[in-house]
């Protein structure tokens, strides 16, 4: 409840409830949930068999999950065994994107330009920093550019569009939401999303069960070094001209955007902001240790074949002819959730009520009331979504003469559920 950067969680009836228009899909709650009650929905895997051409887009982070004992070739082969017809790297379009982004940043009016790469950050800005929405780069992220490119090429080759299925293996939940209901796009080109932890298990099993074969076609990465590291922290910032900054971790991002919003920071051209610590390597669905993943991806990047470097400019030209004119996002809308009421006069009344309540609430943010902080409870009460009696401290004040413990128990049971009052030696405990 307290890890949520937009205070979107409440506890009631023994369960966590999500205020959905506040949620930015960052997945911080998924990381800490002691009962693993939060699951990330994915598409049915068998969906891949309904397409004749079934392309899987693998991010560099996936290859970074398998330590040295499993080669890229084996990972690729496992994908084919699982039923995909071809494998393309998500970052295939990065070299093309770098050119587009540099032009965009160069001509942008509002500085700093905020990267549109991390979907959780895009939503964070919409929800918490509405005045900065116009600073988000209206350039489609690499995943979408690559998908458009593949689809265009296949259609060009004469493949009917309904026979093409493009699937993406995601290290995070925000990308799934970005595919299902994209911001700044009508519809995503991706046909399905598969969670990285799911595919990780499947690949591991395939690799362990298959015998090493010789002489088969080898999978060779076609990425340039900077494409390989794009999804890591500083991947973007190191490729954009001018004064660029890379910040990872959603709380770090919030701290910095507060300053940007006050106009305290003026001489920065581009902000690469990522919700997860260590960026996509720290995605909630990436099973490997993020630090090892980063190290492995950097190693891979430094050992890419000379061939891929030579091919880079050729690839940029091919992208330009296939998808130029389709690189922009449509303008984004703010989705502010902080307002207490649409009507300012009503909002002011509610704020007065909040300030009044804050005089009585203890300010220790214990969370027993089911709201993440005293301020959240006060706001919930002012909005009519909670009762002051949920605060154990206020119960004492309200029933000055004879506090009734039975009444208190009833309230606590309503918040935390019946079972919290029973002895339970197996209850999930967060080990931190």
């Amino acid at each position, binding site marked *: 409840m307290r890890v949520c950067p937009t205070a979107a969680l409440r506890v009631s009836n023994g369960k966590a409830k999500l205020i959905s228009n506040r949620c930015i899909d960052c997945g911080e709650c998924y990381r800490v949930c002691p009962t693993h009650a939060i699951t990330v929905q994915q598409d049915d895997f068998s969906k891949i068999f309904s397409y004749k051409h079934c392309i899987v887009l693998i991010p560099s982070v996936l290859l970074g999950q398998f330590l040295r004992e499993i080669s890229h070739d084996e990972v690729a082969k496992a994908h084919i065994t699982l039923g995909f017809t071809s494998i393309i790297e998500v970052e295939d379009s990065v070299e093309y994107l770098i050119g587009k982004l540099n032009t965009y940043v160069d001509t942008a009016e509002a500085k700093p330009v905020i990267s549109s790469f991390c979907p959780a950050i895009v939503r964070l800005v919409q929800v918490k920093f*509405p*005045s900065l*929405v116009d600073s988000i780069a209206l350039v489609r992220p690499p995943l979408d550019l690559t998908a458009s490119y593949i689809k265009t090429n296949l259609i060009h080759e004469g493949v009917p569009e309904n026979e093409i299925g493009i699937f993406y293996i995601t290290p995070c939940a925000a990308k799934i939401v970005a595919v299902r209901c994209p911001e700044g796009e009508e519809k995503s080109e991706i046909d399905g999303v598969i969670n990285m932890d799911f595919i990780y298990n499947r690949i591991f099993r395939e690799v362990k069960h298959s015998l090493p074969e010789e002489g088969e076609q080898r999978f060779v990465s076609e990425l340039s070094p900077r494409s390989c590291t794009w999804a890591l922290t500083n991947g973007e910032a190191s490729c954009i001209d001018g004064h660029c900054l890379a910040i990872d971790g959603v709380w770090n991002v919030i701290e910095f955007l*507060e*300053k940007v*919003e*006050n*106009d*305290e920071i003026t001489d920065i051209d581009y902000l690469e902001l990522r919700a997860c610590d260590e960026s996509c390597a720290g995605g909630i669905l990436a099973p490997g240790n993020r630090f090892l993943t980063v190290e492995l991806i950097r190693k891979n990047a430094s050992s890419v074949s000379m061939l891929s470097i030579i091919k880079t400019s050729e690839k940029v030209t091919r992208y330009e002819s296939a998808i130029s004119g389709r690189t922009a996002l449509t303008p984004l809308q*703010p989705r*502010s959730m*902080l*307002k*207490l*009421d*649409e*009507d*300012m*006069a009503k*909002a*002011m009344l509610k*704020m*007065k009520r909040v300030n009044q309540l804050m005089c009585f609430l203890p300010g220790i943010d214990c969370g027993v009331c089911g709201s993440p902080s005293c301020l959240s409870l006060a706001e919930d009460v002012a909005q009519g979504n909670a009762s002051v009696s949920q605060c154990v401290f206020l119960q004492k004040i309200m029933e000055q003469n004879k506090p009734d413990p039975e009444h208190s128990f009833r309230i606590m049971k309503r918040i935390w559920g019946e079972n919290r009052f029973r002895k339970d030696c197996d209850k999930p405990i967060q080990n931190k």
Partner: protein
Amino acid sequence: MHFEYRVQGGDFVRAGQASSQVKKILKQLNVSPSIIKRVVVALYEGEVNIVAHAFQGKIYVDIDTDKIRVVLDDVGPGIPDIDLAMKPGFSTSSPIVREMGFGAGMGLPNIKQNTDKMKIASVVGVGTRLEFEVNLKEWWR
């Protein structure tokens, strides 16, 4: 609604706290982002002025449904020539303050640019009072 904030002269570490607080309040009151931006930019400049030049100060913010009115009162050296201080680029900041990235002489002109009404009164050796207003209903202008 009325809010008050204390500002300590010379404390650059905390400069901007009042602006951040006011920003959060205005967001909760569903004030449009463009107006919030103008108020916050003006207030931040004013807050930094107190930190940079004065010994201490107080900020009073009054919000109603038509406008936001801010008064920044400080105890400090005062401004001998207000017209000169309003000129873009003019600054009396010490080299140390400039080194910290403040004191470019754009503070007061920037406040004027972002507000609908601005008044400054100062007594040398006593202090300065800066008042400004931002209208909330833009279509009235």
